[in-house]
């Protein structure tokens, strides 16, 4: 089933003829597999899929997203998650079950304009997505620099088992929070590091579809000596893990989001780090 190597397609392109299973962004018509998005066609054991190169974020259950509080009603907050639907964060989720709209001041906990990391708990075609922040590493984001990228670039930015984002974080001394919806928050000790991280992220966004991207990012960040560290993680595994555990907890949670996503990185996308 490896007849098609990676190939660029546009909507309506016939990817392959034969009895294959359509997986993602493809339709089956008669005996043809036809692409429905601009992207890279790929075949795997399970079937044929197209990895999209453009598009807005469509919420999925279990995605970790970063959203902005827009408004609140008496029972829930309205959160802008950069998608075609605004999400709802129920007040009980923050105040606990004994929440009373008369007693608790919702604006004190989360005011309009605040950023939150949240997980989508329910979403279907009939109702707007519902969020939760009652988990480890979720909740209000206190500080950082805000950045928006296309949500189709998020898996590439994380990289295989988080390799790309770790490279950027280590080289620039920053922490990067990633939402599956393409919203990032970068925090760091100094402004130069943050500016450099921004540059690297922009590079990944612009050239996400090119090969050898990790090398380009490393060239930009001047991390020749660190290449060996991140790629052969085993030699320095203890040291690296220690660093990750102490400083990158939020990053792990956002990588977790990647597990449930489209997984542009086909090889073992599971986040293996113990936390």
């Amino acid at each position: 089933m490896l007849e098609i190597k990676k190939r660029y397609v546009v909507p309506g392109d016939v990817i392959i003829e034969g009895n294959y299973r359509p997986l993602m962004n493809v339709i089956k018509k008669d005996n043809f597999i036809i692409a429905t998005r601009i992207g890279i066609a790929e075949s795997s054991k399970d079937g044929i899929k197209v990895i999209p190169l453009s598009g807005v974020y469509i919420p999925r259950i279990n995605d970790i997203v970063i959203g902005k509080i827009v408004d609140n009603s008496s029972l829930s907050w309205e959160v802008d998650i950069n998608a075609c639907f605004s999400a709802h964060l129920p007040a009980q989720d923050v105040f606990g079950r004994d929440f009373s709209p008369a007693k608790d001041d919702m604006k004190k906990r989360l005011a309009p304009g605040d950023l939150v990391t949240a997980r989508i708990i329910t979403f279907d075609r009939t109702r707007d997505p519902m969020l939760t922040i009652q988990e480890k590493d979720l909740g209000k984001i206190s500080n950082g620099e805000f950045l928006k990228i296309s949500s189709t670039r998020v898996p590439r930015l994380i990289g295989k088992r988080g390799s790309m984002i770790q490279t950027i974080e280590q080289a620039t001394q920053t922490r990067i929070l990633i939402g599956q919806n393409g919203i990032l928050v970068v925090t760091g000790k100094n402004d130069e590091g943050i500016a450099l991280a921004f540059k690297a992220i922009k590079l990944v966004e612009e050239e996400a579809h090119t090969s050898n991207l990790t090398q380009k990012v490393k060239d930009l960040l001047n991390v020749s000596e660190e290449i060996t560290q991140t790629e052969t993680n085993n030699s320095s595994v203890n040291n690296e893990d220690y660093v990750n555990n102490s400083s990158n907890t939020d990053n792990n949670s956002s990588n977790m989001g990647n597990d449930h996503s489209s997984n542009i990185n086909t090889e073992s996308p599971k986040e293996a780090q113990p936390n």
Partner: protein
Amino acid sequence: MDQTILIDKNGKRTDGRSIDDLRDVKITIGVLKNADGSASIEFGKNKIIVAVYGPREVHPKHMALPDRCVLRCRYHMSPFSTDTRKNPAPSRREVEISKVMREALEPAIMLEDYPRAAIDVFVEVLQADGGSRCAGIAAASVALADAGVNMRDLVAACAAGKVNDKIVLDINDIEDRRISRYARCIFTKS
């Protein structure tokens, strides 16, 4: 009556094409930074720019459909796009073409993938030279693909007319004014 010869004795038209030749086409994508998808097309002397926004929330909310996406199209000719200044207010013709374009694009888009959302397509004609709606449809389908909307196929369109009992494809402005019958066809593969 204008006495221009539309087809000369060699079978060539006013701009040197034969009856079934298309004009030169050039399509560029991603011309607008703030749109979700965009394209510009040069179809002969037509110059058209298309912006696609969405899928996004529907405003006003009551327009939203529970089972599928709303597609909204706006075809507009700039005041400077024609020989004499065109009033920028939407004319009857533009309202009709907007509807025709919407109906041409709807079957190609998988609207059922985005329930309760809307996709907005804005087609702005910067320079008109006959067949601008067909060029607009082609550009709109490319812009939709650029926006990452799920589509069954790209859409192509071409005008046709009858000159001296001969069917002529892709009519330009001069022919458009003199033509006896006129039809536009819209194609998809599937």
